[in-house]
C-alpha cells in the first residue's frame, strides 16, 4: 500500500525528481522505484504519483499501460521473462518456452496458484549471444537448456 512507502524510498524519489527541469519527466524512474516496493502500480499508486508530479492521474495510467515493465497487478515472487524473438528461437527458444510451461504447470502470461512464478514471453532482451535466454526478476540467464532450467528453478528459494 502506498501509505506505507518507506522514508528511504521517499528520499530516493525526491532525489530522482530533482534531476529533471520538469517534474513529470521523473515518472518512469519513480514508477520503477515504487513498483519495486509495492509489486505493482494500482489505482492508489497512480493517484499518489500524479499528486507528487502534479499531473492528472490519466497521464500516469497512460504511461503504466504503454510500457510493458509496469504491472497493474502483482506478479509472482519470481518473474520469469523468456525471450521469444528470432535469435533466441534460432537457438531453441521454443523448446525452452515449452519446457518452462510444463515445469511450472502454467502457460505464458499466467502465475502459479502459490504466487511463486509468473511466466512472460518478451521481445529481444539484448543478450542474443547467449541465446536462448531469459530473466528471472532482474537477473539474466543464457545458453539455456531444459537441464539448466531445472537446475536454476531448484536453486530458487
Amino acid at each position, binding site marked *: 500500500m502506498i501509505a506505507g512507502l518507506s522514508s528511504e524510498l521517499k528520499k530516493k524519489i525526491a532525489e530522482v525528481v530533482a534531476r529533471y527541469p520538469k517534474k513529470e519527466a521523473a515518472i518512469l524512474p519513480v514508477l520503477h522505484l515504487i513498483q519495486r516496493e509495492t509489486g505493482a502500480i494500482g489505482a492508489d499508486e497512480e493517484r499518489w504519483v500524479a499528486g507528487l508530479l502534479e499531473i492528472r492521474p490519466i497521464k500516469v495510467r*497512460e504511461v503504466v499501460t504503454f*510500457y*510493458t515493465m509496469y504491472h497493474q497487478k502483482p506478479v509472482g515472487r519470481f518473474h520469469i521473462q523468456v525471450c521469444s524473438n528470432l535469435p533466441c528461437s534460432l537457438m531453441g527458444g521454443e523448446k525452452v518456452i515449452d519446457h518452462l510451461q510444463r515445469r511450472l504447470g502454467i502457460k505464458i502470461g499466467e502465475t502459479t496458484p502459490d504466487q511463486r512464478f509468473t511466466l512472460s514471453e518478451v521481445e529481444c532482451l539484448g543478450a542474443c549471444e547467449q541465446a536462448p535466454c531469459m530473466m528471472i526478476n532482474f537477473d539474466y540467464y*543464457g545458453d539455456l537448456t531444459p537441464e539448466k532450467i531445472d537446475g536454476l528453478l531448484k536453486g530458487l528459494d
Partner: protein
Amino acid sequence: MACSKAWTRHVDEKILTEHFGLANLYEIEAYLERGGYRAVTKALQEMTPDGIMDEVKKAGLRGRGGAGFPAGMKWSFVPKTSDKPKYLCVNADEGEPGTFKDRYILTHNPHLLIEGIIIASFSVGIHAAYVYIRGEYEAVAQRLEQALAQAAQKGYLGKSILETGFDLDVFVHRGAGAYICGEETALLESLEGKRGHPRLKPPFPATVGLFQCPTVINNVETLANIPAIIQKGAPWFLDKGLAKDGGTRIFGVSGPVVRPGIYELPVGTSLREIIYTHAGGLKPGKKLKAVIPGGMSAPILKADEIDIKMDFDSLAGVGSMLGSAAVIVIDEATPILDVLKKVAKFYAHESCGQCTPCRIGTSWIHKIIKRMSAGHGEKGDVDELVRLASNIKGKTLCPMGDAASLPVLSLAQKFKNELESCLKDGSG
C-alpha cells in the same frame, strides 16, 4: 548481468574493446592506468569546441544507432547561441533484435562512454546529459551510475570540470520496456514522462528536442568513439574504415554459429569474414541459408550474397542496411516462414499505434502469417503480404513503418517459392 564468458575476440587494433580483457576496467582507477580521461583533458584544455567538431566531422564518424548520420554534422545543426539550455540524450535503449553491443560497452568500458559524453557536450555547449537505457539493463545501469559517481569524484563531471569553468551533469534514465523508445523522438517523449509516441519531424531535435530545447541524440557506440578521435586524430580514425565511413564497428553475431558474440572490426569488413573467420562459421552439421545483416529491420541476404562489405553504403547498394551491425545467421533447417513469423509478431507488438498503416498493417501481416503457419495459407497470400508491406512503407510518421515493411518484403520476395510451397494450393 552475465558477461563473464569470453565472447569478445581480439583481432587487429581496437578502439572500443581494446582493454575488454581487463576484469576491472569499469573501475576508474584501472581506466586511468590505461590512459583514461586523457582525451577529456586534451579536449577541454587544448582544443576549442569548434575544433573538436571539425575533427569529428573529418573523422567520418557515422552514427552507430542505425541510421548512420554523420555525428559531427549532427552536432553542428544545434544553434550556437540559444537562450534555452541544450541537452544530450544518449541512446542506450538497444532494442533492435540481434543487437547487444552497447551492453558490452556499458558493462566493460563505461568510462569510455562518459569521456565521449563530456567531449561531445563541451563541443556543443551542453551542460546536462541523460543516458536513456533500456529498463531490462538494470545491472548495467547500476554499473554506469557507479562509473558516473567515480568520474564526478575525480572532477571529470559536475562543476568546472578540470577547472576549465565547463559544467556538466549526467543522469541515467531507465526505460520500461518499449522498443519504439529507441526511435529518437519517441525517446524524447519518453524522457519527458510520456508514452513513447514518435514526433513529427521537422522540427528536428537539434532545434526543438528535449523539453522543447536544442538536443543532440547519439548512440552509445557513436559517443564511445569520440575519445580515440580526439587522442589519435581524424586521419587515424578515418584510415581504420572507409573513405566516408571511418573507424570500426562492433558487429554482434547471433544464431547457430560456433562463436556467437561481439567482434570489433574495421568498417567494411566482409560479411563472409565476420561469419566464417571470426564467429567460426556455422555449428557442425549446419548450413548457411540466409543472414540478416543489420538487426531485424534490415532486409535479408541469401547465402550467396554474403561477399559484401559491411558499411552503410555497400549494404544500401544491395537493398539492405547496416543498421546496428547486428548479424543474425539463419541455417538451412530453419523454415523461412518461421523467420517471417517472428519478424511479423515483433512489429505488430511494438507498433506504437499512432499511424494507421503501421498499426493495422503490421497486425494484418501477422494474422496472415499465423494462418500460413497453421497450415491454412491460401493462394495469393504471399502477394497479399507484399501488397500490405508496400502500403506501410513510406506512409508513416516515423521510420518504424519502413523497418516493419522492408524485412517482410525482402523475405516474401527472395523466398517466394519456399513460402508458396507452404500454401494449401502450393503444397499440391
